């Protein structure tokens, strides 16, 4: 028998069932004006991740995790490929268009390969916090989350200022946002409920959610859904085309391209990214920018 409490609805009210952010409809908001009359802010985020060989997978195994019995050299090295080879192909593809990425970096990658993060920073890429590694997810009841966040940011901030955060596998505890705000983080990329930034309440401060899609993501489409590279191309282009069209009447939009260097950085896949970027960049009014630049412009351009 189920308890009668099951039929009580204490948070049944207008708007959200929590106080983290306000209910707000995309179409009903003021138009946002990007710098120089741009229509689309292009935001490319190739993640640098490390899946440790002794991965425990708590409280779940994110996409791309190790799979076989220990030692799973197969998946360990396939993921490590991204930090060693794949990311350098992405750099070339972005350099061709003068696009600066926002690069979510597991702090462990920065500790293991400081030259790689220096290379990203030297390109003017924005360094975004991405937790410690792919085996340190954030979850309710985890130990020492505050220390984990502080340690991760301390490592990354030796390379550059860090204003943005993407939790590994977009995982959060109830406290994550509050702790991030306390550490001076301005925006977070974990929530996938909007196409534009919006404010969140975080421990007495305001944090902004940035629209880092989990849908038009190379790993989601190619690995998760088993669609092929031509589908990835079509879906990214279709996503852009709709946003571009909307921007004619609804104000500036953001085109996110979330990537994984171990996925899109493969020789047979990098051309897909090049094709998509060529399509996007041939349009008038495309502004390639980092997450922090987009957030600042959104605030200045009537979003906040």
């Amino acid at each position, binding site marked *: 028998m189920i308890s009668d409490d099951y039929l009580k609805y204490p948070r049944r009210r207008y708007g959200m069932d929590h106080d983290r952010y306000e209910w707000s409809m995309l179409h009903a908001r003021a138009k946002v004006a990007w710098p120089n009359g741009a229509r689309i802010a292009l935001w490319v985020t190739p993640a640098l991740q490390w899946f440790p060989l002794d991965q425990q997978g708590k409280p779940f195994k994110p996409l791309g995790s190790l799979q076989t019995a220990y030692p799973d050299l197969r998946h360990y090295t396939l993921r490590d490929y991204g930090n060693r080879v794949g990311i350098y192909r992405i750099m070339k593809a972005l350099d061709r268009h003068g696009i600066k990425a926002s690069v979510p970096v597991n702090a462990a990658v920065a500790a293991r390969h400081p030259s790689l993060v220096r290379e990203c920073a030297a390109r003017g890429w924005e360094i975004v916090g991405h937790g410690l590694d792919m085996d340190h997810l954030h979850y309710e009841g985890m130990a020492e989350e505050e220390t984990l966040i502080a340690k991760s940011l301390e490592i990354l901030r030796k390379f550059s200022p860090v204003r943005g955060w993407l939790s590994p596998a977009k995982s959060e505890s109830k406290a994550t946002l509050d702790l991030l705000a306390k550490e001076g983080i301005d925006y977070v990329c974990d929530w996938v409920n909007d196409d534009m930034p919006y404010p969140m309440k975080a421990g007495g401060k305001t944090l902004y959610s940035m629209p880092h899609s989990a849908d038009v993501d190379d790993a989601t489409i190619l690995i998760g859904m088993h669609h092929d590279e031509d589908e990835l191309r079509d879906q990214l282009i279709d996503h852009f085309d709709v946003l571009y069209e909307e921007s004619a009447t609804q104000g500036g939009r953001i085109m996110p391209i979330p990537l994984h260097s171990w996925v899109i950085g493969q*020789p047979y896949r990098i051309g897909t990214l090049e094709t998509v970027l060529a399509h996007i960049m041939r349009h008038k009014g495309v502004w390639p920018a980092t997450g922090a630049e987009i957030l600042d412009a959104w605030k200045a351009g009537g979003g906040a």
Partner: protein
Amino acid sequence: MKRDPGLYDYLPYQGRPKIEWPGGAQVAFWVAPNIEFYELEPPKNPTRVAWPRPAPDVHGYSYRDYGNRAGFWRMMEAMERCGVRGSVSLNVAVCDHHPEIIKACVERGWEFYSHGTYNTRYMFNMSEDQERALIQDSIDTIKQHTGQRLDGWLGPALSYTENTLDLVAEMGLTYICDLFHDDQPGPVKVRKGRLTSIPYSLEMNDAISFVVNWATPRHYGDIIRRQFDRLYAEGAESGTVMCIPLHPYLIGQPYRIKAFEEALAYITGHDKVWLATGREIARHFTENYYDAFAKASLAVGEAP
């Protein structure tokens, strides 16, 4: 358990020493058919279940057996028409079960390297002595049935212990196909001896493409061409390696073989391609570039 296998240092895929393949080739291209034997009733392994269905798994077993009865011969002829020698990733028990296949490979000048004894005998949990016995079996069986010295290794069903690669090097083998971190060969850090990793590519592996990624036969042909085009272009800077690992039970199906053969012919139709075997690629790298690559590599920092 180790967090990092500690098998290689960091060498970013830019500004590397220039590899020059024989004849001015930009890509060293090799095809690695996995000639395998899966036992109908393998002994139980504490770590991995051999068949998804209860014994006898008639479907799983007979699907693999198709490769040896039918698929191999179709695949061999397609390769022969394109002038490509195979580097056989051999479960050495095939020498006893199906000597006709071994003979056909020997007659065509194909190389044999070891993929363990059976694809249903995993190296997980083995003692060093057990591993040594298994490796020695491969050395002896390949010598006896093919006259060849055993130079290369690919763990049976990609199974390992922490010691496997150390032991393989100690016992005189010179290259491994077990690491998927790169598109060029590289030094492997082992206890004793000198071991080279050569790219075997799971991404181009027919089993990964068809069984894991659900690629169609024509799409498989497309991504082979794309992989080649990229590695061919990049090889002008420093020679790359492209491998196509095959499984006769998959690629040897009538509905798949044509699209594959067309892709193979596309590759062999280029002039700056070195059609090589695993041993030849490893030897050329080890003799000419191993030291330069080791010297250019950066130590991996400690992850917190």
